[in-house]
């Protein structure tokens, strides 16, 4: 078996309400980093904690390195300490009554399969790796947030677990530090060849760190794909919206062939779009597209419309326009410090068919 982590039909139900995790399946091949992305309450952290063994699943199967660690139907439940995993917590969870060295050496001392070897050397190497070589004897409470998170990372890497779990490890840090540590985290994980499962609500983290990204909502895994596919071929209107395609045009399907569809937008005319859904003629449809993919003042080969700028919001590095055409409204984004289009003037706009994505309209509310 090649997968370092295999999850099949995972279900976690708390006492009340909908299941927190609803039949989630995916795998993480050895050496790959998979990011679970979604808004808070989507079940991503619960999934991670089920893999860690800190939450007990109510259904499905979890295997780590080919060994089943959780399968409630057969009464299998391996305790966290026997799963050979490492975990980095959102709140760092470094032990404040110990020094940096003691924190990192802790797993080597208390693991049953102690790992053996020279504890001091292993700790020293790992601290070097995370850039804390000179801090070994400091009490952790004297460190900054970013340094504490490095200690937590070193503590979970020092014994080279089969699988590393990271639960929003950067979200307690300030914005600048978050970006720096994010890039460094990728370097360290790739350098050590770790297999990782990473949970975040931050798209930019997901794109930089993930070999694949899984977008979750209300306990369900909506799409699991490499970052560029998530961004260019979102399989679900929620995925499209969550990753930034905030414009939605409503219409009816005229015809579809393969993954190409033509949608009737009423007074605005018709639009060609890519679709992952099996749409049939007459279906209600919603077309999603990114504000930055709207070409203002351009007449392309297809999907050309004529509209009017209602409002212009200058934001320095970019300008946002509210555009109205044939009873539909959308936001367009123009990069650069100069705003070239005036309000209340007729304007041509092109919506490239490849960047318009049509979905079946199931009346779901857009998320902010």
């Amino acid at each position, binding site marked *: 078996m090649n997968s370092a982590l295999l999850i099949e039909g995972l279900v976690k139900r708390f006492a009340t309400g909908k299941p927190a995790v609803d039949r989630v399946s995916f795998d993480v091949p050895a050496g790959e980093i998979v990011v679970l992305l979604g808004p808070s309450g989507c079940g991503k952290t619960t999934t991670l904690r089920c893999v860690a063994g800190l939450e007990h699943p109510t259904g499905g199967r979890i295997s780590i390195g080919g060994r089943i660690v959780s399968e409630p139907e057969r009464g299998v439940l391996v305790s966290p300490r026997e799963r050979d995993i490492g975990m980095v917590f959102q*709140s760092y*969870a470094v032990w404040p009554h110990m020094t940096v060295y003691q924190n990192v050496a802790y797993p080597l001392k208390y693991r049953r399969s102690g790992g053996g070897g020279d504890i001091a050397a292993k700790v020293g190497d790992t601290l070097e790796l995370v850039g804390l070589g000179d801090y070994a004897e400091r009490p952790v409470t004297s460190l900054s947030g970013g340094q504490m998170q490095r200690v937590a990372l070193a503590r*979970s890497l020092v014994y080279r677990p089969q699988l590393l779990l990271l639960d929003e490890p950067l979200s307690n840090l300030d914005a600048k530090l978050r970006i720096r540590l994010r890039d460094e985290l990728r370097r360290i994980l790739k350098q050590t060849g770790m297999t990782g499962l990473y949970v975040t609500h931050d798209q930019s983290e997901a794109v930089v760190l993930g070999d694949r990204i899984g977008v979750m909502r209300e306990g369900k895994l909506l799409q699991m794909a490499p970052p560029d596919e998530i961004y260019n071929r979102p399989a679900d209107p929620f995925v499209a919206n969550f990753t930034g395609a905030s414009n939605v045009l409503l219409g009816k399907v005229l015809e579809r062939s393969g993954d190409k569809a033509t949608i009737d937008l009423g007074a605005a005319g018709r639009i060609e779009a890519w679709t992952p859904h099996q749409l049939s003629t007459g279906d209600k449809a919603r077309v999603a597209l990114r504000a930055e993919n709207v070409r203002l003042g351009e007449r392309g080969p297809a999907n050309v419309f004529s509209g009017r700028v209602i409002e212009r919001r200058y934001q320095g590095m970019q300008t946002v326009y509210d555009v109205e055409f044939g009873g539909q409204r959308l936001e367009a984004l123009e990069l650069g410090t100069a705003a070239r289009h005036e309000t209340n003037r007729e304007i041509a706009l092109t919506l490239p068919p490849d960047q318009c994505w049509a979905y079946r309209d199931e009346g779901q509310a857009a998320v902010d």
Partner: protein
Amino acid sequence: MKMPQAHLRTPRRNEALTATSAADLPISTDAARPSRRLAAPLWVLALLLLLTFLVIYPLLMLVFGALSDSNPVIDGFGKFSPSAKHFLEVLGNENVHLAFFNALAACGGGTVLAVVIGLAFSWIVVRTNTPFKGFIAGASMVPLFVPPLVAGVAWGILGSPKTGLLNTALKWMNIDFRFNFYSMSGLIIVFGMYYAPYVYMFTASALKNMDPSLEEASEVAGASAFATIFTVTFPLIAPAILAGSLLSFVVMLGIYGVPAALGAPANINVLTTYIFQLTAWSPPLYNTAAAVAILLMAVTAILVWAQQRILSGRSFATVAGKAFRPRSLNLGKWRWFTFSLAMTYLVIVVVLPTLALVIAAFRKFMFFKDFDALFDMRQYSWVHFNSVFDNPLTMLSIWNTLKVGVITAVIGGTLAFAIGYTVFRTQVAGRKSIDMLSTLPVAIPGLVVGVAYLWAWIGLPGGLYGTIWILALAFVARFIPDTVKALSTSFLQIHRELEEAAWICGRGLLGTIRTIVLPLARPGVVASMTLLFVLAIRELGSSLFLYTSDTTVMAVLLLDYYEGGNTGKTAAFSLVQTAILAVLLSFTTWISRETTQSARFN
């Protein structure tokens, strides 16, 4: 809203904003009225004088007593010649040493036991899925409300070497072992069981506030549950454990009732019982009592200081600032084991002693031929209750207790409000000294307050001594730190801007307090007054030295019955006192809950 007045102020503010130099600024109205400027210093001075009268003067008289060998009753204060000689003699006395080391042993042993019980309980309640956790958490606080003397009396009935009920049961079961609670180990066990809640309170909240991922990290890192508890959990809450155990040690050190009931029959004196013995001799050794009281106070003060230091230091457990759902460990079948552990404790601490008191109170004679005689209904009657209520002192003591309770609550509550407002809501000079003086009694055991008040008033002719006012004033002084603390939280919850808004609307300081602060702080005021009332009606330590036959209170009368040697009457009156306490306690809890609920608007 008094809008017109707000308008009146607006132009002046504009003027101030456009003024180009200080000379152009309008003269403030406060500066124009010199009487206003004097009000604050006068108020601070009045509070300081009052606190000096309540706290400092008695303490000075205590030191004065310890440093002299003149008897204030016989000699008056004229023949006072201070010398350290007397004090040093007392410190060198063997009996004092013995009482001192007995106290350290009893309280030290009791604290160790209290830590074990308190820690186990907080872990069970906060960290496991033991059934009926809420009930266990609530019931484990019950020992705090049991008056120490009642606990001592009950355990005497249960564990006296010859007639103890436990020993009767053991004999019936043909087990050769006999309990003897009239001993140092008996003292330690009863201390440990009844003062464990102090440790529990500190450790439970520390466990609740601890980031659960600290323990999860250890588990994921491969440590066993056992290793996690001892390498992560307990070290992290070490400050709370230490603070809780120091507090329980200090409380035990100041307790009179338990060692009086269990130590006295075996001739084991601790500092508190020794001090009382000195004043009960004839002639009473007031000077020696004062000297030993100062020793007791010094030990207490050092420990309280240490405890405050620990609490003010940064606690480990709150490193990450976010709200947690405390982790609860699934114990599986073992949760019934922890449940039965908790139940055993509750049975031993609450059910057994109550049962013992009931049996002793209703049984004509405490002699049991065998275990079956326990169920011989002909042996039970109301005779002890009748004789207790035939005694005119009984009703007098109940009446006196209620009077003292009400006086203490009213005076203490008002004073605490004045102090709390001055310290927490104003910037007047001298508020730091007020704060310090009002926290000082934290370090003074009740018994020492009693001796100090005795010294302060016994020599003054026609004064306070012999009235219930001296009891009430001593209680106010003793409990003022607790009352101010209870009130301070409700002061801190009232946002400053609520008061400032009233000032802007044109209200004066007193008007603002009356119309804004007092109504908003009412739940806190009522709660702290009821707290004071309850504390006052169960206080024994400081009453011992201040009562006379006209002003006897329930706690003192109970001691009288106990020392009179009639177990039946003692048990009967214990039950009466407990019942009255329980009724008043539930009544006052109800009142403060009502006021809290009707004041939910902030």
